[in-house]
C-alpha cells in the first residue's frame, strides 16, 4: 500500500492547489468586506460547468469555451455584488446579514446551474500543449501540470497586482481600513465590486483547469467552499502564500486519509488534524493582512 504514497501526495498537491486558489478568492473578499463568501466554491463549479456547456453543447472551440466560461463566471460574481451585497451595504446591514445572503446565493446558484445546464457531471478534454512529467514512480499528467503552472502564475500575478499597482494597493488600503481609504478618495464600493470580480475570476480559473481532471457537477461548489475555507483558515485568512500552503495541507490530508483510512472517516480525520493545527497556530501559518480590527461596514 505504501507504493501508493507518491501518487497520493501528487494527487493531494494538485487538488490542494485548487483549494489554495479558492482560499485566495475567499481571502480577497474577506479583506475588503470582512465577510466570508460562501458562494466562492460555486465560482469553481460555474467556471467548469459553463466552459463544459460552451464546449459540449454550443460546440465552441476549447480555448474559446474556456475563456467564455471564465468571463461568464466573473460576470456572475459582479452581479452578486451588485444585486446582493451593495444594496445591503448602502443600508448598513450587519455582517451576519451578508453571510446569510451569501449562503442563500450558494444555495440558489447550484440549482440554477442544474436547471440551466443539467444534473450530469460535465467535463471537457485536457488543454494539451504541456507534456506529462515522470516524477520517480509517479506520472504527472499534462492537465495536472496545467493546474500547478496556472496556480504559480496566479500567485505571481496577484502578488504583483497587490504590491506594484496603484489599484492593488488601493484594494489593500480598503482592506486595512475602509474609513481611511474613503478619506483618501478611494471609491470603496468599487473596490468591493472588484474583490468579488477577482474572487470569481480565481474560482473560474480553478474550475476550468480542474474540470478535465475528473468532472464538475452542479453541487461541486459546496466541497470547494469548505475546503477553500479550511485552507484559508490554516494559511491565515487573506494571506496569498498562506492560502496556497493551506490548500496543499488540506489536499494532501484529504488524499491520504481517503486512501489509508476510509472515505467515510476521512473527513472526520481531516477536521481532527485541522483542529490540532489550529490549536497550535490559532491564526493560521501566516499572518493575516488584517486581524479583526474592522470597523463597522
Amino acid at each position, binding site marked *: 500500500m505504501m507504493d501508493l504514497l507518491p501518487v497520493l501526495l501528487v494527487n493531494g498537491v494538485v487538488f490542494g492547489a485548487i483549494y489554495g486558489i479558492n482560499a485566495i478568492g475567499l481571502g480577497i473578499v474577506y479583506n475588503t468586506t470582512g465577510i466570508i463568501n460562501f458562494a466562492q466554491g460555486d465560482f469553481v463549479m460555474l467556471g467548469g460547468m459553463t466552459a463544459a456547456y460552451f464546449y459540449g453543447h454550443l460546440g465552441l472551440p476549447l480555448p474559446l469555451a474556456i475563456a467564455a466560461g471564465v468571463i461568464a463566471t466573473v460576470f456572475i460574481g459582479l452581479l452578486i455584488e451588485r444585486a446582493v451585497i451593495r444594496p445591503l451595504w448602502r443600508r448598513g446591514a450587519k455582517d451576519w446579514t451578508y453571510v446569510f445572503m451569501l449562503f442563500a446565493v450558494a444555495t440558489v446558484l447550484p440549482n440554477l446551474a442544474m436547471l440551466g445546464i443539467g444534473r450530469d457531471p460535465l467535463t471537457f478534454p485536457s488543454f494539451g500543449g504541456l507534456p506529462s512529467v515522470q516524477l520517480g514512480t509517479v506520472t504527472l499528467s499534462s492537465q495536472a501540470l496545467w493546474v500547478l503552472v496556472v496556480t504559480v502564475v496566479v500567485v505571481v500575478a496577484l502578488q504583483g497586482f497587490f504590491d506594484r499597482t496603484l489599484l492593488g*494597493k488601493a484594494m489593500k488600503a480598503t482592506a*486595512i481600513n475602509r474609513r481611511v481609504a*474613503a*478619506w483618501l478618495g478611494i471609491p470603496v464600493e468599487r473596490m468591493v465590486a472588484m474583490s468579488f470580480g477577482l474572487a470569481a475570476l480565481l474560482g473560474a480559473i480553478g474550475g476550468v483547469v480542474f474540470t478535465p481532471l475528473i468532472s464538475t457537477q452542479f453541487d461541486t461548489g459546496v466541497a470547494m467552499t469548505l475546503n477553500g475555507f479550511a485552507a484559508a483558515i490554516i494559511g491565515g485568512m487573506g494571506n496569498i502564500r498562506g492560502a496556497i500552503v493551506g490548500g496543499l495541507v488540506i489536499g494532501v490530508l484529504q488524499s491520504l486519509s481517503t486512501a489509508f483510512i476510509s472515505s467515510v472517516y476521512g473527513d472526520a480525520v481531516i477536521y481532527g488534524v485541522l483542529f490540532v493545527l489550529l490549536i497550535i497556530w490559532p491564526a493560521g501559518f501566516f499572518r493575516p493582512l488584517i486581524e479583526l480590527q474592522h470597523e463597522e461596514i
Partner: protein
Amino acid sequence: MNVVLEVTDLKVSYGQIEALKGVSMRIDRGEFVGVIGANGAGKTSLLMALSGAVRAKGGSVTLDGRDVTHLPQHLRVSNGIAIVPEGRQVLGPLTVMENLELGGFHRRGAARAEIVRDQEMMLDLFPILRQRARQLAATLSGGEQQMLAIGRALMSKPRLLLLDEPSFGLAPMVFDEILGTLRRLHAEGLACLMVEQDAHVTLETTSRSYVFRTGEIITEGSSSELREAGLGLVEEIYLGSAGKSS
C-alpha cells in the same frame, strides 16, 4: 475676495441626536482657520460632513463656488478637500512611500513621474520621512506618522486641508515643527481648517477661529482677539466639560 469654503446652515444628526444645528462659516484662500470647543461640541461632525464621511441633514457646502454638499466621499478629494484624520490613521502595513502614493489616488490618470516628483516633494517637506521612506508606516513614531498623514493628504493637491486634532498625543516640540511646516504651506495659498480641543494651541496658530458649543457656533473672530478675551472665554468653552482630555 477669494472664498475657498462656504458653509451655510449645515446640519448633521445621528439618529435623534443633532450634532450640528445649522452652522455657517467661511474660509478664504490661504487662511488658517481654527475650530475650538469641548468634547461633543460638533467639531468632528463638522469635519465628517465636510469630508463626506457623514451626510448633511441640511444646509450646503460649497468649495470654490461649487456645491459639494451631496458629492460622494471619494469625489470630495478630487474636488480639493483632503483630511488629516484624528489619530493620524496612517496605513500601518504599507510603506511610507505607498501611503503617499495612495494619497494621490484620484490622480491615477497623471503621469507616474509627476506622482514620484510629488512624493519627493513630501520627503523634502518632512526630511525625517526620507530616512523612513521604505519602512512600514506602523514603525514610525507618533510625530512621524502625523507628518506622513499630512504629506499623504497633500499628495491629493488639495485646496482645503482639514486637520482633526493634529496635536493629539504629540510632544509640544514635535508639534511645533509640524506647525512650522503647515504655516509655510498656508502662506503659499493652501486654506487650512484645524479642529482642536486645545484652545491655546489653536488660537496661537490660526488667524481666525470659530468657537463651537453643543453643535452651534457661539462666537467667532480673529484668533488674537479671542486670545485677548482671555481665560474667561476659554473657561466658558470648557465649562462643565471634561476639559482637555479626550
